[in-house]
């Protein structure tokens, strides 16, 4: 994982040591299987076969594709796991905007609904199409790592994968885990704190990767239909039983921009949404 990976645990040392190794192995397994950066990953195989042939997938991958499909539907197509290809033109280190023609050339390759898949294989119909699980892979890994701990008898602890948190179990004294939510304007500082006894918390923020051009903020979360970044919310934090779900709810809210607030309220989950003007909507 590119971001810091942290386990906070209470219990017997020997058991914790053993469990940490296994949880770490589980995180690495997910990374290796679904990384878009590793040549040997299953995801690379799927992408290399784009326009050529179908790739065999296992049940876990099919489950994740099904999940991605649901996110696509829920967001009316704004969340699309084939949109990662926009990285080719959006370089946040360059501090220059991409050429609109270049974006337009890529848009035909972003089309989840054209991808053929079932429980055993997937086929990307056009050459150069790509999918990736960057939109929720980290959150999924946090859930899985927490489940590894639970299955080994660890009852008190949390998994923190770059700010995506999944609680394994409450603290021994049941006082809850206190977790800070980043201030999008000063991400090194917390804007507020929440106390979690169970479940998960995930945040999507426009401060993770971005550039400022002509005073305008351009972040890495992009709408699949336009190829341009969203620009309404600075960050959305959601609490849900699973980290995967918390992460998707926050990302989908970011993508829905203004409409996202009312949609998120309908989900009846605790959240904190901060818009680019620093205005907060809190339901924590």
């Amino acid at each position: 994982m590119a971001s810091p990976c942290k386990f906070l645990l209470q219990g017997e040392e020997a058991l914790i040591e053993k469990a940490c190794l296994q949880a770490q192995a589980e995180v690495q397994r997910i990374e290796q299987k679904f990384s878009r950066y590793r040549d040997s990953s299953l995801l690379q195989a799927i992408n290399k076969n784009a326009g050529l042939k179908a790739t065999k997938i296992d049940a876990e991958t099919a489950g994740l594709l099904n999940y991605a499909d649901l996110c696509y539907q829920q967001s009316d197509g704004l969340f699309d796991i084939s949109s990662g290809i926009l990285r080719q033109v959006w370089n946040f280190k360059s501090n220059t905007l991409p050429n609109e023609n270049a974006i337009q050339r890529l848009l035909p390759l972003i089309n989840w609904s054209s991808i053929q898949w079932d429980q055993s294989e997937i086929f990307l119909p056009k050459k150069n199409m790509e999918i990736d699980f960057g939109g929720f892979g980290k959150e999924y890994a946090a859930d899985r790592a927490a489940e590894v701990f639970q299955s080994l008898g660890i009852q008190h602890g949390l998994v923190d994968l770059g700010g995506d948190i999944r609680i394994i179990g409450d603290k021994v004294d049941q006082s809850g885990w206190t977790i800070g939510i980043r201030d999008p304007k000063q991400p090194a500082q917390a804007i507020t704190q929440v106390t979690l006894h169970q479940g998960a918390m995930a945040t999507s923020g426009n401060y993770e990767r971005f550039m400022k051009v002509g005073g305008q903020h351009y972040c890495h979360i992009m709408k699949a239909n336009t190829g341009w970044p969203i620009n309404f919310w600075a960050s959305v934090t959601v609490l849900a039983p699973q980290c995967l779900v918390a992460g998707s709810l926050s990302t989908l809210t970011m993508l829905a921009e203004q409409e996202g607030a009312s949609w998120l309220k309908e989900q009846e989950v605790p959240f904190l949404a901060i818009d680019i003007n620093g205005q907060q909507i809190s339901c924590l």
Partner: protein
Amino acid sequence: MKKVTALSALSAAAMAIPTQAEVAPTDETFSYRYTSYQEADSPRERTFTAETGRYQIDVQQFGYRTPIGESWYLASELQYETMSGASPTQTYKNDEGQSTLLMSGASIEEQRVDIKVAPKKYFDHGTAGGLLAASIENDYQSLALGLDGTLDIFNKHTTLIGSLSVSNDELSPTDPELSTARTEADGRKKRSFSVYQGINQVIDKFSTVQMGVGYTQLTGYLSDPYKFKDNRPEARDQITFSAQHKQFANVLDGAALHSSYRYYYDDWGISSHTLDLKWAQQFNFGKMRLIATPLVRYYTQTEADFYSLQENPQAEDFNSSDYRLSAYGAFTVGFNSELKLDKVSFHFDWQQYISRESLALFGASDDEAPALVNFSTFTAGVDYKF
């Protein structure tokens, strides 16, 4: 944005992502157990013969488990038992209506060797295992083969369990010339066929329940050649229904309550109920972990149709005075403990078993069964992980 609740739809889809394959254990372990089994003496006032001392059995058990390749696991066990003492040969009602117990005269000294090998293969959604077991005594030999499998469904919240086993035993009683029963039994076979079907369901994070039904068919020489007037049918069909519940609790450093119930029925007229309760309590002391498990079990059964205390039953009639076929009830209390260190863990277990006619809940009879046994077991052992 669609107005359906995304939370429930996403949560359901997230839950539906299958977890990884059940992973084969990676630990190579060696284990040793010593068990002392001691039966209480039979009651002097009801025992006709001079001998009242009953069985004392010492068991030494060596186990070795190792992973083979990525997905296979092999468990093997060697057990050596030495038995000494006398056993009941007949119980009959004397002229005064009192039950009288005859014991085998000479104290028996015997050895038994058991060998078991069980390979298991781990798949993405289940396991498949085999079992080969052999047991050798000077008067009894047994060979058993088994197959078992599990299949995980519904995102591993449900596991289907199935097993099948057959055994083929051969009797060769010591001193076959001593009685006609022993002569007849010499070289006779006893066969069994068993099948079990079960389902294990995860209820929530803290509890699981398992239910199952089992059937066993025994055929061949099922009498006891060392007992007098023991003439049993040459077939026996047995059915069991069982249910187990496991509940984890956040007590001290973690605990679990195991409760189970089993109903048994056979075509010899015996039905039984078994109720088990166990509380496994964990205590953490720095790097050490202690799991202390007090347990209690109650058992009650009805008597077999041909159980009788007649001194001289008709030779052609089915008959047995074996106390294990009488109506009785039994309590077991026990305490198991396991002390886990880094690579080594120590085990100390103790159990006391008490059986009485009067503890029977159903079909209790006024006849005394003085052969009903009380015994205690003590086990000490060590496991070492390489």
